[in-house]
């Protein structure tokens, strides 16, 4: 291979005017973190609600939950990103659409909403699976004790279900970080886009993407360890899946 390696490139000034190439990548990392964390909050909140709704005995709520999951899970994320950014503003009244388009950082807000909703469908599926994995006697016992349905969920079902689905939720958290790279298609200069821009300016493509790879790995490593710590903290001795028997999260 005839390639001019230059690992010092990261300390050279980048032509985008924000300092060195390393600064460019770190700025990108900042956007990746902001997008992923904001989207993850949306995904967790909505995902819990939709997941719970899908296990209730109320028919119309279950159907609405099913529809939510199918819509957001069955359309590719790339397509959803494009629809939110280019199509939705055209469907709104002209003045609202124009406001949305002129909004500063509109790519960021769009990416957060899109990624949050997309991931919420996946979180919802896991929450549902967690609740359904509990013995049906749990729910009956709750009702028999005189708890209302919301109380049964709040005090009996959810505390157990969430603990059970912690490992797959860890994977979803990592996915949301990696999926945030799709936002580069609507012009958000996050980590992957920064690496791309670095290679366009400097032509040092391998250095740029090696750095991006290592940053993503480090980031996800932190997530894995953080979530593992959380799992241990929240583990209830004797409960299903507690302690050493806990399946390994991630990959």
């Amino acid at each position, binding site marked *: 291979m005839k390639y001019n*390696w230059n690992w010092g490139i990261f300390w050279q000034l980048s*032509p985008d005017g924000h300092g060195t190439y390393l600064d460019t990548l770190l700025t990108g990392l900042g956007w990746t973190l902001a997008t992923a964390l904001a989207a993850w909050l949306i995904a967790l909140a909505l995902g819990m609600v939709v997941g719970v709704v899908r296990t209730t005995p109320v028919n119309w709520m279950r159907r609405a939950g099913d529809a939510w999951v199918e819509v957001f899970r069955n359309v590719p994320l790339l397509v959803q990103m494009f629809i939110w950014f280019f199509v939705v503003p055209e469907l709104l009244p002209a003045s609202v659409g124009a406001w949305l388009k002129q909004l500063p950082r509109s790519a960021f807000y769009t990416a957060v909403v899109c990624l949050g909703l997309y991931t919420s469908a996946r979180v919802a599926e896991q929450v549902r699976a967690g609740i359904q994995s509990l013995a049906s006697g749990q729910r009956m016992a709750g009702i028999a004790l005189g708890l209302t349905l919301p109380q049964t969920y709040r005090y009996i079902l959810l505390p157990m279900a969430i603990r059970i689905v912690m490992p797959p939720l860890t994977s979803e958290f990592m996915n949301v970080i990696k999926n945030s790279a799709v936002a580069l298609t609507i012009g958000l200069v996050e980590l992957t886009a920064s690496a791309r821009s670095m290679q366009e300016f400097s032509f040092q*493509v391998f250095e740029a993407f090696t750095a991006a790879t290592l940053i993503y790995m480090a980031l996800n490593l932190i997530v894995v360890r953080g979530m593992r710590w959380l799992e241990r903290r929240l583990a209830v001795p004797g409960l299903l899946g507690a302690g050493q028997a806990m399946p390994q999260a991630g990959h």
Partner: protein
Amino acid sequence: MRNLRSFVSVGLAALCALLVAAPAHAQEGTLKKIKETGAITLGHRDASIPFSYFDDKQAAVGYAMDLCGKIVDAVKADLKMPNLQVKLNPVTSATRIPLMANGTIDLECGSTTNNLERQKQVSFTITHFVTANRFVSKKAGNLKTVDDLKGKTVVSTSGTTNIKQITEINGQKNLGITILPAKDHAEAFLMVETGRAAAFFMDDILLYSLVANSKTPSEWVISADALSVEPYGIMLRKDDPSFKKVVDDAMTKVYKSGEINAIYAKWFLQPVPPKGINLNVPMSEVFKHVVAKPTDSGDPNDYK
């Protein structure tokens, strides 16, 4: 802990593989490689109209492809291999460097800007087009110069020299322009079309082609104001003087013999596939100068 260690060791192993592989396979010239394999591989773009793109029959065609054809003829003559096999390999702006470095492609026939920074990594033959950084906007907006864009939102394609220039000018003149990066040219154009941005900064030749292919070409205007000069060159591997000489000589011959005029006219002054649109861009004074005095310089000041 096990997880941490496996993560780090995989990362390090990958890194070491890259580092070790680097100096091990130093190539001994493209000509030797072509002679041994009996084939030359051209890298081409998929949608860089009219330089290098797929036509309606999914064949790679274009102005740069025709010039590469001339270069291939010269290589055949030089190596006395009339039956040299010509392979085509599509590239994108992100893959062109790795594919050239690892020997997958021997020439990149497209619309790649030749500049000094990139010459640290690859080499370029004689400039085959000179473009300028301008902006396209809707006629209704009545935007003529960069100063008219004060306080507005503009778009350019991320990672291009164009976005770098408008960023610099915005800072120098303190215009308060919001600059959006777009993924590719089509999407940047779409941003102006849908009103997300007032103007799109790009190489003028690409703007001409985007306007010509738009729904209503008459509603668009391209600024007379030019921010820079960008020479395009066909890319080849660095430090390969024997191959570069054959390629440079072939290009010079095309220019000196006047063949360039017919090739230029075919792609810029006549309808081109797939839609039969005529870009109608006559040869610029700057490029006429290059044809008269062929140069492979990557310094914009040499084109003034």
